[in-house]
Structures are given as structure tokens and as C-alpha cells.
């Protein structure tokens, strides 16, 4: 491994994922540096979400290693990976629909709590104290994503844009050091996307590293330090947003061979 990867937050090396005869990801290598926003882009079916699922333990990779802060995390369960500080959101909106907004964040604060079953059953004093502190923290996380006013409402009563904010609030409650966002602004209108980009900047200011999968190119180019482009499970390009925008391979992947020929 090169010296460059030594200080990396996350290192994905030779990752391969196959579903039966279908290869979703093949020989994928990349690294996420501490504090940066790295975006994975690529056409549908390029393997972005599969890579996400492998990093967070939802599917077992067929080959390759995944190192988080120097320790292997491939083969661990999702909850163990979350415990180490790698937390994700889902492409399809995923919250606890039957609970209130503030309870959703409280559920997300699972790792922030030190309560053990025995202490709970014995009703120890500090458990109640911690409960009050957790409720306080849930409120402040809601304020951070601008959902404070929605705290007592049922999650199922929220409009789509606010549900996506709630997802991020739940993920933030789990105290991530590396946050993986899977198409967080898909289906949002331009104004909502704008405000989400500002939220992303605030999250980044907390020192949280972000790995982003996104189709909205304005957002990707606006927030990313680096962009990696995938096609058919392979990395075809990587670099700064400006480099990616002019990369012929990327243009070919997105717009097709004939477009490139016509331009040439």
C-alpha cells in the first residue's frame, strides 16, 4: 500500500461484489481522506449502492478488503460497523414511520447511551438522568437539521423533503465520523437541494467525513472535494469536480459513445 493511503479514513482495496452471474463491482480501489467530501457518481447500475452496502456490512464482498482507520471492517455486522463510527443513510427513504420525529432521533441515539439491561431493570438513578440528557440532545440534533418545530409530529405525517432531513438527523444521532449518504437529495426540488447543501456544509464543519452517492450533478460538483466515477462496477475516473467534468471517459459513460464521436 502506498504512503498516501496510510492516513486515509477509509480504504477500499480490490472490492468485488457479484450477484450470481452478475458482477456489480469489480476491482474497486479508492480511499476517503479525513475531513473530505468524496462523491461516487455513475449511471444507474454502476455499483455505487452495492459498494455502500459492502462498506456498511449489508452485503458481504466476494473479494477485497475494506479498512477503516487501519482496521478491517469487511465481514463485520452493520451494527458493529456503526459502532466504529461509519453510519449510512438509505437510497429509499428510511425512518421509523410509526414514531414521532423526536422519538426517531432518540432511537438514533442508541450508541450515545451507556445504559445496560441490568441498570435499566434496577431503575438506577443515572439511567433517568441520562434519559433527560438524551432527550435534550435529540432536540439539539433536530435544531441542527432545522426540524425542531416538527418534533412532536408523527414521522409518517412529514412531507418528503423533511423525511430526508429526518434520515440525516437519525444518522447524525449515531455519532458518525464517516457518514455515507445514498442519494440524499433525489426527489427534492431545487430550493430543498440548496438548503440540503448548506446542511452538508454544517455537517462537514463538525469534522465529519462524508462519502456521497448522488445523481444531482449540481450538488455533486458544488460540495465535493473529489469525485469518483463508476461504470459497470469499475472506476473509470477520479479527481476534482473540474477534472471529472471534462474527462472523456465520464462523458462517454453518461452520454454514450456516439455523442463523443459526434463531438469529436
Amino acid at each position, binding site marked *: 500500500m502506498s504512503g498516501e493511503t496510510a492516513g486515509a479514513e477509509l480504504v477500499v482495496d480490490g472490492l468485488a461484489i457479484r450477484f450470481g452471474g452478475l458482477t456489480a463491482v469489480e476491482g474497486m480501489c479508492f480511499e476517503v481522506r479525513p475531513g473530505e467530501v468524496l462523491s461516487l457518481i455513475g449511471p444507474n447500475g454502476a455499483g455505487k449502492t452495492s459498494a455502500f452496502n459492502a462498506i456498511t456490512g449489508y452485503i458481504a464482498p466476494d473479494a477485497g478488503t475494506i479498512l477503516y482507520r487501519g482496521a478491517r471492517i469487511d465481514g463485520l455486522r*452493520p*451494527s458493529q460497523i456503526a459502532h466504529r463510527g461509519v453510519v449510512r443513510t*438509505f437510497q429509499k427513504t428510511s425512518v*421509523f414511520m410509526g414514531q414521532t420525529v423526536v422519538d426517531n432521533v432518540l*432511537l438514533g441515539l*442508541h450508541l450515545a447511551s451507556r445504559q445496560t439491561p441490568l441498570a435499566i431493570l434496577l*431503575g438506577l438513578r443515572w439511567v433517568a438522568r441520562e434519559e433527560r440528557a438524551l432527550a435534550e440532545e435529540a432536540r439539539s440534533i433536530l435544531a441542527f437539521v432545522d426540524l425542531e418545530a416538527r418534533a412532536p409530529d408523527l414521522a409518517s405525517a412529514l412531507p418528503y423533503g423533511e423525511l430526508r432531513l429526518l434520515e440525516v438527523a437519525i*444518522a447524525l444521532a449515531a455519532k458518525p465520523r464517516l457518514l455515507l449518504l445514498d442519494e440524499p437529495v433525489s426527489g427534492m426540488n431545487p430550493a430543498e437541494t440548496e438548503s440540503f447543501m448548506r446542511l452538508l456544509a454544517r455537517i462537514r464543519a463538525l469534522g465529519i467525513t462524508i462519502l456521497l452517492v448522488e445523481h444531482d450533478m449540481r450538488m455533486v460538483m458544488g460540495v465535493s472535494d473529489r469525485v469518483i466515477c463508476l461504470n459497470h462496477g469499475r472506476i473509470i475516473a477520479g479527481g476534482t469536480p473540474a477534472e471529472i467534468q471534462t474527462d472523456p471517459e465520464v462523458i462517454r459513460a453518461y452520454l454514450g459513445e456516439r455523442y463523443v464521436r459526434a463531438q469529436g
Partner: protein
Amino acid sequence: MKRALTIAWLLLLVSVPLWLTSLYVLHVLVMTGIFIVAAMSLNLLLGYTGQLSLGHVAFFGIGAYTSSLVSLGFSVHLLPGWEVSLDPQPVWLGMLCGTALAGLCGWAIGRISFKVRGAYFVIVTVSFAEVTRLVALNWVELTQGPMALNNIPYLRLGTPDLVEVSFLRKPANYWLVLAVAVVSYILIRRLVQSRAGRAMIALRENEPLAASIGVDVTRYLVLATIVSAAMAGAAGTLYAHYVRIVDPDVFLFIYTVTMVIMVVTGGKGTLAGPVVGGFIFGLLPEALRSLQIGPEIQWVIYGVLMVLVLYFLPQGIVPALRDWWKRRQAVSQRATMASAAPRTSMEAAR
């Protein structure tokens, strides 16, 4: 206000044996109380983790048999030339053993079925209950089989020469069951209003999301199963030393069904649900019996009432009442605001 209401309820429940003259009704209340404890334990699994244990009566029966056997003493030949025997132990020790062994079985069931959810969990628990029933029926040397365990001692606390409380008569048993029910209620409330309970709700509502925020799904499923099983076992030990005869029929499927009815009609996933449902469907058969109508008509009424409750209140009685109360308060709030508004405008006009 809420606290005063709770205390008033408790005082009423505690005072029942003091003014209730009918010992038969008191007996019905004791049996209902035992089933309410079992229903509360089932609610922890069914209501909070969302897993239906259709063999819950197994833990109840294991508690009953273990407690009886420890307090009666036993002697069995496990292998040729290898005999295991136990002298009669104090009843309280038996009850502790019954509760603990039921909890241990809960742990085993939770571990075995950690990968199976939903329908498969139901099948595992149903099979477990059936196996325990067949063991109780056929291991005659230990359980007396269909001849049943008889003359099970009643609970005595303290020492004969100093102070001794004996739980032979109905009022004492009523208070004992009430105490266990209150303790169970408090334990379940602590659990569900904590990190552990929230983890259970999280995995009920959205398991992939729960895992992504660090909830160890297996751990909390197993925890819920252990607590639930131990509590059902405790209810079983109460039953054994109150009725004082235990036969393999304690494992009958109908008892599980009764618990499920109590939980679902009362409102699963609510603290008060199994208590309310337990009182209604525990006392209903006795109330119908007093109506002097044929037994087949009684059960038809029981069934029709149950269907009506589920048809009109699919969430259960407690959530329906809670919603109704919330709506009523919202309406009265609007009414006071509406009545306040014209007065100020009239004052302004004056």
C-alpha cells in the same frame, strides 16, 4: 393528577379482598391476575419487538413444573445407574428456580431463532411449546404425566417460630399476584422507556435502519425473549402454588391464544393494553357464565365481542381510548378559544 390516579387505582386493587365477600369472584380475580402477568410478558415480545411467540405458554408451564418439582422434590433415573434426586426445597426457592429456568429457555429460544423472524419465529415457538407438553406428558417418572403433580405446597415466607406469612388462602394469594403484577409492570415500563426498549421498537419498525445506527438486533431480541420468558415463568410459579395441582394441560395452545387475545384487544405495544385486555377477556367468561345461558351461547358471545373489538378498534382498546381522549381535548381547547374570542371583541365594541 396522573400520579394521584395511579395511587387511587392501586388502593382500589389492594382493598378488593377487604370488601369483596364472594371467594369465588376473588378466585377468578387471582386467575385473571396470573394471566395478566403472562399477557404483559407476551406484550414485551409481540408489542415491542413485533415477534409473535405462539408458544408462550411453554414458559408458563416450565415455570409451573419447575417450581412444583423443586418444592416437592424428585428423583429420576437419567441413565442406567445414574439417579438424580432432589429433596423438597422451600417454595420461594422453587419459584426463583422456575422463573430462572423459564428465562434460560427464553435465552435458548432467542439464540436459536436469532436468524428467523416473523412466521419462522412463530413456528419455532409453537414447536417448542408442543415439545415441552409432550415431555411433561410422557416423562412420568419426573412429572407424573397425566396423573399430574399433586399436593404442591403453598408459599410460606419467614420462619415458623417468628413471623410467618402463608399464602394458602385466597386474599393472601390475591395480594401476592397483585404484587408480582405491579413489579412486572414496573420492570416492563422501565425496559420500554429506555435504550433497550427503543432498540426493540427500532428493530420492529425498520430493522435495516436499526442496524445502521448500531442496534445489535440479535442482542435485543434475545434480551426481550429472556425477560418475557422469565416473567411468564413467574406467572406459572404463581399458578402452581395457588392451584396446587399441575398437569400437562398447562401447556395447552388455548392458553397462549388467550394471552394473545388479551394483548391484541387491549392494544399491543402499550403498557396498559394487556392489563385492560386481560381484565376484560379474563373476567368475561365468568361474567357470561353468571347469565344463566347455555355454554355454547356464552362462547358465541365471547367470540362475537372479540371480533367486534378487533373490527372497530383494530389497534386495540387502549390506543383507541387514547386517540379519543386527544381528539376530545383538542376540541375542548378550540371551544374555549372560540368562546374567548367573541367576548374580547364585545369588550372592544363597548
